[in-house]
């Protein structure tokens, strides 16, 4: 039974044969707390160059999502986790397409659309 679970992959977060220690969650909590505090500080402080704040927030958020995936969901690139990792990569790809695709299309439409007052004049 044991060799089968080694051979056929491992479910995310479920580790019957490889013992996950309490330490993993505590390390995750430590990193996540630091990153959360950092992003709240970045959003409310005046010390940082204002146009750079959204980029910094995005970096901190992506880093924290990575911390959660590694230390809480125990996703890794280990050979027995190939399926989980590929599914995650595909999920990230679709999320990127949906979010950035919608934003790009809507920005384009906004740019190409005639201003509303001119549009109203034409309808008269």
């Amino acid at each position, binding site marked *: *039974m*044991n*060799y*089968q*679970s*080694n*051979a*056929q*992959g*491992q*479910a*995310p*977060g*479920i*580790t*019957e044969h490889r*013992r*996950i220690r*309490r330490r*993993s*969650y*505590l390390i*995750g*909590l430590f990193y*996540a*707390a630091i990153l*959360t505090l950092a*992003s*709240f500080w*970045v*959003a*409310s402080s005046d010390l940082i160059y204002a146009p750079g704040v*959204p980029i910094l*927030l*995005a970096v*901190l*958020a992506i880093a*924290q*999502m990575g911390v*959660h*995936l590694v230390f*809480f*969901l125990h996703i890794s690139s280990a050979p027995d986790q190939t*399926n*989980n990792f590929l*599914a*995650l990569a*595909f*999920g990230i790809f*679709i*999320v990127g397409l*949906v*979010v950035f*695709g*919608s*934003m790009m299309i*809507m920005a384009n439409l906004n740019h190409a659309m005639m201003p509303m007052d001119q549009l109203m004049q034409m309808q008269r």
Partner: protein
Amino acid sequence: MNVMTETAATAKTIPLSMRGPAPVQAVVGYGFWLFLLSDIIIFSALFAAYAVLSGETNGGPSGAALFDKTHVFYETACLLASSVTCGFATLAAQQRSMLTAFPWMIATLVLGAVFLCLERSEFAHMLATGNGPSRSAFLSAFFTLVGAHGLHVAVGLFWLVIMMLQIATLGLRPMVRRRFFCFALFWHALDIVWIGVFTIVYLGAR
């Protein structure tokens, strides 16, 4: 010990196609992982709608005027702490220890409930001041996105109560453990979605 090294050696020599079906645990976990990823894709559509509509306030208040950052910080802290207590409950369930699992599950339940109460008070305040979802496209998108996350948390709490009842009545048998591990995955995934919510909606508010 000797048996284990023997099976490990055979596992390498037997080709992948002849190793038989994967254990139920791995199949259940993988299926639930796929469900979670598609749930996150649903959230990404709501995030996209929010990102497009966040500037369309129709003369109403903008996000920066409405949101209270300390309130959001408490919500974030609750959800992060509940993620960790949920992880500890998983560890206890793995070690078949009901006595350690229950306190951590109750802690998860309480922290999740505090999160929902905080969110409810925020929504109630916004509705009372006339800034409900019908005020502007921005607020419609806000209530849809944050409300969908809150609904997921509420469903998660309901699921957690059912898991506590099942562990109390059925014990930590493999079936119940699998269900509880799926709940833990769900709960951690909700925390990941919340990172997106507090960064894009609350901290990114202009």
